């Protein structure tokens, strides 16, 4: 499916009236300590961003225990640094099956998604697709647990790369990357208004770094043999690697239809050439649903 088709479907979905509280608009602030996901030894550039998002979900109940939902989303991200502004348009389809009757019954979810990411510097524009299989279960009145396995594929829009920008025999575009991840997450309800989401995840696959070129970076990029000048002052290169991510947050329900969420994420990884990466993300989001 082409990104333009995704955008069209999303715009069509937004005004459709369906079940209550399946439309969400949110405003988020994000601090990213390593926006280019560069190795710790290299210059790390932090950035702050503001994000405005909207999404609409349509749900079709298939049986007393299963339903299908389709979500269209539009995210606008504006960065103060590093020219990472981007607009994302996505479609998410999820099949959910509750494995029996009752509040504590486990539920199985299978989701597929397609998302078009359009950057300010458009060489890293990409189409992202994913398959997610998840199992979740409320343990008791206070704690929900979930396990999600996810395969994600990023495919750059090849027509954005000119032959002059190719510096080496790349495995396709440098922004093409595949990875799988496993995430164990929980939500602890502190009371009827406060809750605490936590997650730990493992990611294995391609890591793409964007950095200002220096001798170290150029040496690393040459070694990786997968790199590209994405603009005059930045180089992108790809390595095989893995990363761990830990997140903890606090959600406050302000009213029945609005909430404030704070999340801290720490991510660290290692590429095949033993370079260590780390970043932390701080996000604050206000959302309204109806």
């Amino acid at each position, binding site marked *: 499916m082409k990104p333009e088709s995704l955008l069209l479907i999303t715009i069509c979905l937004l005004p459709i009236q369906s079940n209550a509280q399946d439309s969400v608009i949110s405003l988020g602030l994000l601090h990213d300590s390593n926006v280019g996901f560069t190795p710790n030894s290299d210059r790390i550039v932090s950035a702050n961003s503001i994000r405005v998002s909207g*999404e609409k979900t349509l749900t079709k*109940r298939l049986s007393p225990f299963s339903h299908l939902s389709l979500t269209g989303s539009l995210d606008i991200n504006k960065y103060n640094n590093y020219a990472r502004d981007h607009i994302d348009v996505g479609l998410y389809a999820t099949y959910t099956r509750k494995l029996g*009757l009752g*509040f504590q019954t486990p539920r199985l979810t299978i989701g597929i*998604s397609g998302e078009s990411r359009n950057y300010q510097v458009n060489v890293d524009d990409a189409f992202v697709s994913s398959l997610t299989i998840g199992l979740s279960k409320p343990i008791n009145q206070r704690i929900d647990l979930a396990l999600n396995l996810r395969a994600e594929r990023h495919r750059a829009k090849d027509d954005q790369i000119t032959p002059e920008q190719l510096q080496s025999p790349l495995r396709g575009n440098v922004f093409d990357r595949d990875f799988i991840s496993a995430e164990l*997450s929980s*939500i602890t309800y502190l009371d009827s208004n406060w*809750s605490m989401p936590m997650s730990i995840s493992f990611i294995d696959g391609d890591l793409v770094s964007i950095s200002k070129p220096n001798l170290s970076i150029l040496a690393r990029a040459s070694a990786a043999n997968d790199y590209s000048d994405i603009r005059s002052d930045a180089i992108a290169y790809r390595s095989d690697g893995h990363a761990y991510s830990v997140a903890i*947050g606090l959600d406050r*329900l302000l009213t029945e239809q609005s909430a404030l969420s704070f999340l801290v994420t720490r991510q660290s990884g290692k590429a095949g050439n033993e370079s260590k990466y780390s970043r932390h993300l701080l996000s604050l989001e206000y959302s309204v649903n109806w």
Partner: protein
Amino acid sequence: MYIHAIKMSESKSNQSMRLKSQLCFLVAILVSAHSIAGDLKISINTQKNQPIESVVVTLERLGGIQQSTSPAPLNIEIKQIDREFVPAVTVIPVGSLVSFPNQDDILHHVYSFSKAKTFDLPLYKGIPNEPIEFDIAGVATLGCNIHDWMSAYVVIVDTPYYQKTNQLGEAQLTNVSAGEYELVLWHPRQKKSYRETITIGDQSTTKKIELRLKPSFRSKRQNSNSNRRYQ
């Protein structure tokens, strides 16, 4: 002979009269004892002196004495409005019929696993065909299989003396036969069960009780943002 027969007849008649008067006296005592009745006014608050609504208050007769009257079964409704059960707590006599009209424009799936009543009403809108009979005393916890935060409680009682506290945390049981009772309080979030022996006389009895409640954890909310699109 004839006179003797008359005397015998008079003697039997006197005995019969005496028996009748004794019976009348006994009935009078019983009736007067039965007619001695009082009221119980109860006020229930938290430790912070906040009134607690929807506490079920019951009086159970002690001393092996049967309840003077059986509570009459009721026909009532527990509605689903804006994805909540209304009312959230209901108290009914054994044998009552409850229907579950769905007044939302979305589907609900009402169920109970409780020993007092096990049932489920798969996906429906409007009014289900048949009401559910609650024929065993106890507490039935209801849920909606679609909306996990929805919960309601049906307290089924076999005493004629029952009430539910109002917004001010108050309940009044009227015309309670004099005698010894066990006062039982029930609330979905109470920390410990509450039972107390009390005596009801011919006057109004007033009680103020402090009940400790557990916090509520779940409410109508969206899923966490990080996972929302995959749920």
